[in-house]
């Protein structure tokens, strides 16, 4: 009788122990899986826009004094994806995006002209995704691949415009066919972006910092942005009769040093506002 009592009591306490022991590990203090018992939250819309800032739309003065204005600044984006990352992704610390939500906003290829103002805003709409889960999308990634059609066909970026300095004018077209993959953290700017609320629309921004390439003539020569910039003089030196149309492969043969500098700078031009990105192919953070 006593043995039976012991066996029964043992089973009573062993069973819940096994259940708990075999359950999924849970970090102390971590919110329990309330999402599973809650009804599906209403969805929202997430836009991704591209922005070359006022330097692309209004022009800039390079670190070496060339006044550059762009007729077109084509960027060819693909595989644009937004994430709700927890913890927040920091491109400077390495690692990968820990996505709790992942939304592919653009799964095709889209060419945008960063020199043109888009739909009443400074930035240009790349794509939008509807029915996305609410929350804060604090990471963004995109690829840049050669366009298969359109004005940037065969290129990932095409910069065309005019450079002027001391009475000299150069009409230029710079074709870039190299692929990039930018993996970025949270947007940093005047307002916080990427917070999708139910039934509402939020946006994220792929930002291109052209001052990394051409420098900023309004800053001192020893400013870090100017010390690393190419400027425009090396390109102007390749112009003939006031015209320059050159691809990266042609640049490599005509001016290897300029080509090498361009290769080092381009991975750093992708940003999210003032927030940083990591160019995955080179592990360059800019």
């Amino acid at each position, binding site marked *: 009788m006593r043995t039976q009592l012991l066996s029964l009591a043992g089973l009573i*306490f062993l069973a819940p122990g096994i259940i708990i022991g075999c359950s999924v590990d849970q970090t102390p203090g971590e919110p329990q899986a309330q999402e599973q018992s809650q009804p599906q939250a209403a969805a929202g819309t997430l836009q991704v826009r591209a922005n070359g800032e006022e330097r692309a739309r209004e022009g800039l003065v390079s670190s070496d004094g060339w006044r550059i204005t762009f007729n077109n600044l084509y960027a060819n984006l693909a595989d644009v994806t937004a994430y709700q990352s927890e913890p927040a992704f920091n491109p400077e610390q390495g690692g990968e995006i820990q996505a709790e939500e992942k939304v592919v906003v653009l799964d095709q290829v889209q060419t945008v002209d960063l020199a043109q103002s888009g739909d009443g805003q400074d930035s240009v709409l790349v794509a939008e995704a509807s029915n996305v889960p609410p929350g804060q999308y604090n990471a963004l990634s995109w690829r840049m691949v050669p366009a298969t059609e359109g004005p940037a066909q065969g290129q990932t970026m095409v910069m065309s415009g005019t450079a002027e300095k001391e009475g000299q004018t150069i009409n230029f077209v710079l074709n870039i066919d190299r692929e990039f993959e930018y993996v970025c953290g949270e947007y940093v700017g005047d307002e916080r972006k990427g917070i999708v609320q139910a039934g509402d629309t939020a946006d994220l921004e792929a930002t291109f910092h052209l001052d990394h390439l051409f420098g900023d003539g309004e800053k001192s020569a020893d400013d870090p942005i100017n010390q690393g910039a190419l400027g425009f003089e090396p390109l102007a030196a390749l112009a003939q009769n006031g015209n320059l149309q050159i691809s990266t492969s042609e640049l490599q043969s005509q001016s290897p040093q300029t080509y090498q500098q361009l290769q080092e700078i381009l991975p750093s031009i992708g940003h999210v506002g*003032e927030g940083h990105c990591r160019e995955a192919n080179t592990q360059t953070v800019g």
Partner: protein
Amino acid sequence: MNSQWKIIFPFVVISVFGASTRAIAHGVRMQARETQAIEVNAEYDNGDPMVNAQVTVYAPNDPATPWLEGTTDNNGNFVFTPDASQSGNWSVQVRQAGHGSIVNVPIEGNQAQAGGDSATPESSTSRVMNTGAANFTPLQIILMGAAGVWGFIGTALFFMRGNKTNSELRRSESQR
């Protein structure tokens, strides 16, 4: 209370408390309380501090609206005390002249842990509270309690078994 006192009493009250009010105006009141402060230090890649940079703090309950705005000091530091009742990620954005970064500081109750990089909170003067039972599920707590009770029962059964054995031994010895 007669009518004379009805007139005099309010003046007595006013004169007593009016005099004490003038005395307090020259006094000093101090209160000391312990709070959790988050210190953020922001610097450029070359190590220069981001002096007088724009700081925006976002609370977890309303991440789209600035909870606090300010500027860094001459060493690129900014200190603030978050509302400990708002658990979650407190986000601190630091910007200056086209350069910026944002760092998240997870706060759980009165417990703060800092992390980040270019705008790294260097210290969080927090007193870590022992959350104790809050870390266990109700089922786990019930099981632990039941296990404790079963420990007592099992111990009692063990000694009962021992006593019977001894009595059986004595009985067998007496039979011999």
